[in-house]
């Protein structure tokens, strides 16, 4: 294999880990409440802007920006749950889709209105330049993003499968009424799920803000990436999202390198439609 190709694949894996992180938030909410959050990509966008504001106002790097973005978005997640989701969950499909889709517009164009449509970016060396490992040139910001995202996604999986909180959440996902009879509050569990899901997007946003272009409409692309990841990994499955996220990261950077940068999104979208056609339950999911 050529050397450049290895470089491209490593880059794809690192970005894919971040895709996995924010997609696991989408898959958690989808699997637990059967709600697709169309504003998910815009949550990531908000995380990017929080990191940007932290940098411009306080000069803080990701050490300050990432926890703050996580916190801000987790709070937003809880507010959105109690203010909107809890009510539209019981409503017709029209209300569910319109509700989160409207939220996406509200967030996207509020940011657009405030910050303008210009592409913003962080300084190149905010995390610490580029270094070489075994001949591979790796940007520190991408390495940091990939490693943190990988660890947090894995931690999220452990949280859901190995802790009592995770068991309670799964119980609510399985049957909210039965869980309530066992003394678990569905409302609280679902609010926690939204806090986790939105917090994950905030962290992911702050991590990619260091090397991605920051623009209000970036959420649209990221939302579709999350849809692809979730439909590939099977909805409700965090390990599925992890594998699918890494895979999509690699596919995207390979097609960007082999076919051309403008076509990398097209390849991912077409992959999504292909999966909807032939395997809507995803690679690992069950219907």
């Amino acid at each position, binding site marked *: 294999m050529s050397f450049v190709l290895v470089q491209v694949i490593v880059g794809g894996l690192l970005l894919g880990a971040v895709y996995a992180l924010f997609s696991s938030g989408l898959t958690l909410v989808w699997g637990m409440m059967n709600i697709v959050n169309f504003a998910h990509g815009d949550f990531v966008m908000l995380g990017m802007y929080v990191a940007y504001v932290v940098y411009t106002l306080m000069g803080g790097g990701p050490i300050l920006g990432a926890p703050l973005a996580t916190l801000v978005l987790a709070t937003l997640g809880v507010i959105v749950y109690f203010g909107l989701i809890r009510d539209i969950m019981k409503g017709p499909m029209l*209300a569910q889709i*319109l509700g989160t889709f409207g939220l996406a517009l509200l967030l996207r164009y509020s940011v657009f209105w405030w910050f303008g449509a210009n592409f913003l970016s962080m300084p190149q060396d905010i995390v610490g330049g580029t270094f070489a490992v075994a001949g591979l040139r790796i940007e520190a910001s991408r390495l940091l993003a990939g490693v943190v995202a990988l660890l947090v996604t894995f931690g999220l999986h452990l949280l859901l499968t190995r802790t009592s909180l995770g068991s309670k959440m799964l119980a609510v996902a399985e049957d909210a009424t039965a869980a309530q009879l066992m003394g678990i509050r569905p409302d609280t569990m679902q609010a926690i799920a939204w806090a986790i899901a939105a917090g994950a997007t905030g962290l992911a946003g702050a991590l990619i803000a260091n090397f991605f272009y920051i623009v209000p409409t970036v959420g649209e692309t990221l939302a579709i990436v999350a849809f692809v990841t979730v439909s590939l990994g099977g909805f409700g499955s965090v390990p599925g999202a992890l594998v699918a996220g890494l895979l999509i990261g690699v596919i995207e950077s390979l097609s960007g390198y082999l076919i051309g940068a403008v076509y990398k999104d097209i390849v991912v979208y077409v992959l999504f*439609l292909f999966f*909807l056609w032939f395997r809507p339950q995803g690679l690992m999911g069950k219907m």
Partner: protein
Amino acid sequence: MRRLLWLSVVAAVAIAYPLLLSSPFQQRLGALVLLYAIAASAWNIVGGYAGQISVGHVVFFGCGAYAAMGAYAKFGLSPLFGIPGGIVLAAGLAAVIGVPTLRLSGHYFSMATIAVAETMRLIVTNTDYLGAAVGLSGPTVPRNIFDLSFLSSLPYYYLFLVILAITLLITWWMANSRMGFYLRAIKDSERAARSLGAPASRTKLYAFMLSAALTSVAGALYAMMFGFVDPESGLGILISVKILIMAALGGAGLLFGPLVGAAILVPLEEISNSWLGGKGAGLTFVVYGAIIVLIARFQPGGILSLFKRRAKPNVDKGAGHAP
């Protein structure tokens, strides 16, 4: 009887409007209201009546717009000749999206439509044959009447009015046909409808294809009026948003819902644009987003459903007094 009276009042107002309010701005506004009402009514067939929320409907709008402009730019024909091509293209694309996704839960359908719309926008933006980012233009100077290129908005107004009437007639006919009853049953409970023998997937697919075909006509008309189409105006997500919000605000699944929504939102946007200028663009969509969230949260049936609920007790009272 009362419905007929209302209908003739609305029709009379619609016909008289551009003659009573005859400034170019007002005529253009009227034409735009009708144009968006056509697109939103077309969306209503699949989004309102069939209950499948398409959030990428602009892709069909774009099929029509590009077919109309393509007919002129590539073959030197009147844009009118592009309309049948746009219809076929849109209905075919709807089948490609609909066949796999309409079997699944409604979320998949919504996600697929948005992905298709974005894919198309990206492909067209990178296709030189379709003018890439610049787009295609229509005839700059009309060669004859069939080019449908007018300086005044008045001819467009009446053209759009006729097409809107046809669209609403088709919707009304569909809602009261066997297909409409199937759709209502499917929307209430797909499982129950299926178990009683209603062909759910097929009926939804037909509704989607019909909706796509009518939306492409709206797209073609739009391109003719503005004389050009580019990836943003023909395939941008914001057109989808406008179509969807007008139908939802007025009342999804109600015949005149989209018209009411368009009559409220188009003037709102035009006025806010002329007041705020370029800075208003972002703000308009902040307001749109807020409106959508509020509808979803408090009144998923839209404005017209408000009147419906109020009207009911009166009808009952009236029946009680009848001899």
